[in-house]
């Protein structure tokens, strides 16, 4: 019998001792929100082109547009790094799967 998606998954949320854990997101709402903001921010910072599509202000000899794109990279690296560390905290505390995915 085909499994109806999205239904009857209660079994998946049960430990062997029969208890049902709280989801990691419910346990750590603030960490989960920070992860979501970090990941969304990493995407939006270069997706929203009007933020940086201008020649001025110049940074040294570099027009702003070109400087911004290269300068965004270290910020994305740091943001994703923090997101990974926060997820690890959720996993150990929430006893189960990662949130924010």
């Amino acid at each position, binding site marked *: 019998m*085909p*499994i*109806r*998606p*999205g239904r009857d*998954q209660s*079994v*998946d*949320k*049960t*430990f*062997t001792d029969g208890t049902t*854990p709280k989801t990691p997101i419910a346990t750590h709402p603030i960490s989960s929100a920070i992860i979501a903001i970090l*990941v*969304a921010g*990493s*995407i939006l*910072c*270069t*997706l*929203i*082109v*009007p933020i940086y*599509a*201008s*020649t001025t202000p110049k940074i*040294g*000899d*570099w*027009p702003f*547009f*070109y400087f911004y*794109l*290269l300068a*965004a*990279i270290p910020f*994305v*690296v740091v*943001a*994703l*790094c923090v*997101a*990974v560390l926060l*997820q*690890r905290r959720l*996993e150990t505390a929430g*006893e*189960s*799967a*990662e949130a924010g*995915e």
Partner: protein
Amino acid sequence: MSNVNATTFTIVIVLFALVTLVGFAAARWRRAEDMLQLDEWGLGGRRFGTFVSWFLIGGDLYTAYTFIAVPALIYASGSIGFYSVSYVIMAYPIAFIFLPRLWSVSRVHDYVTPADFIRGRYGSRSLALANAVTGILATLPYVALQLVGIQAVLSVMGVGTSSTSTWLKDLPLFIAFVVLAIYTFVSGLRAPASIAFVKDTLVYVFVIVAVFYIPAKIGGWGHIFGVAQTHFTSVNPATGKPFGTFIPTTKKTGSTQFDFATLALGSALALFIYPHAVTGTLATKSRGTIKRNLVLLPVWGVLLGLIALFGYMALADPVTAEKVKKSGNAQLAVPYLLQHMFPSWFAGVAFAAIIIGALVPAAIMSIGAANLFTRNIFKEYVRPSASPKLETRVSKWASLVVKFGALLFALELPHTFSINLQLLGGIWIMQTFPMLVGGLFTRWFHRWALLAGWLAAMIYGTLAAYNTSSPTASHWAASSDIVFGVSIYIGIAAFIVNAAVAVILTLVLRAFKVAEGADETRPYQYTAAAKPAAVLVPAQAGPLPAQPPMSRSQ
């Protein structure tokens, strides 16, 4: 072969010979007892750690296309080429959302290809076939692009015969390719993984030297950007329009901010659903490895941004600009720049970096496409009883076929703006996003609705790309089209068609209660850190394992 610089040529040959040795020796690297499982040849035994994966995936994603076509686009059109920097920045946070889930479910079920997952998730052979065919089609121009990169370097080096026959003229390219084909055949994914070290080291050295050395030699960054700005805002007498744009505009058509953003977003969505990117991902040993790599891989973006600026450097150097103008081929901008700026021995190092930089991804791409063919076409439709040994053999031969298919692609199709070739592949592969990434999060979509959405978008995207024209080309001229009066990347436009069809048909098919197919995956498997012990032994798909206790990630 009259005006070949002996020093440059010798350095290139020596480095090429070195990676060939490494490629063959790789067969012995971390060799498994049973080389006949497809995971061994096709995924390097799924054992690569963070360090190796960073080089492998980096070497895989930043290709000869990066070194040749991106600066070529910037040289010819200006700021729009910088979409590539925005795109690699976005690709990793996007992948961060779905890639760990794909890794986990693939590890639990021993999936080798993205189509394996789709087969298991939707219980649909045809949807898996659609994914496999798209993957193979999208990979061919991508491999071809690597060849175009090698060709550009070879032609500037003066290597090649003066024969008018295409095949004889490109004999050196042909030889390089045969060597690549043989060691990939022998060593599988281990070959590009080990060559990637050599390649990436050469690339980092030459780019870092170049970004300090070249601007100092031609008058500094201020001069480089100044020349570019003047050039792209001046009017081209041939077309009566500016040569390009220095900053994306706020107009409705042309190189607009919206066009820039959709191009970057579309490419970013597509990056990690390419078969070769999935191959690199599934070859890692743990879920943590994937995450750590997604954090560290954007570092490559800095390199890409600097390489992109070679386009402006070429424009600012009068000798290089004159040579490129004479050849009429913007792809030669970087090779000419390096040749003119560097002493011949260092030009040799840089050229070797580009040539080897083409071989690594070409090998991984052909392996990814070959795995798709073997698992989702051959095993599914031709020989369902195929043993792992036969699968491996078929995959090896298929990787050869893919490479020579790409060679045909590269030699027969026009070369100008080879970036558009890859963008056509990007338009196609993006249409597998709803079935693949959608499927990682929800089973809401109906399998036939996904198939219909895919088909509609493939047809629309291909026609739209075909119909683009420019003053110099009547077809396949651009990756962006004007929809409702606004310039937009065709991949995104087709993706919207795709998603709309999938949503509407899902509602219709559900209303008529059309069978949805069996789903062999379970929610907890999408976050699993490792394979449950119960299914460690049999590699083939069998009945579902008994429900294990909830696994603790990592």
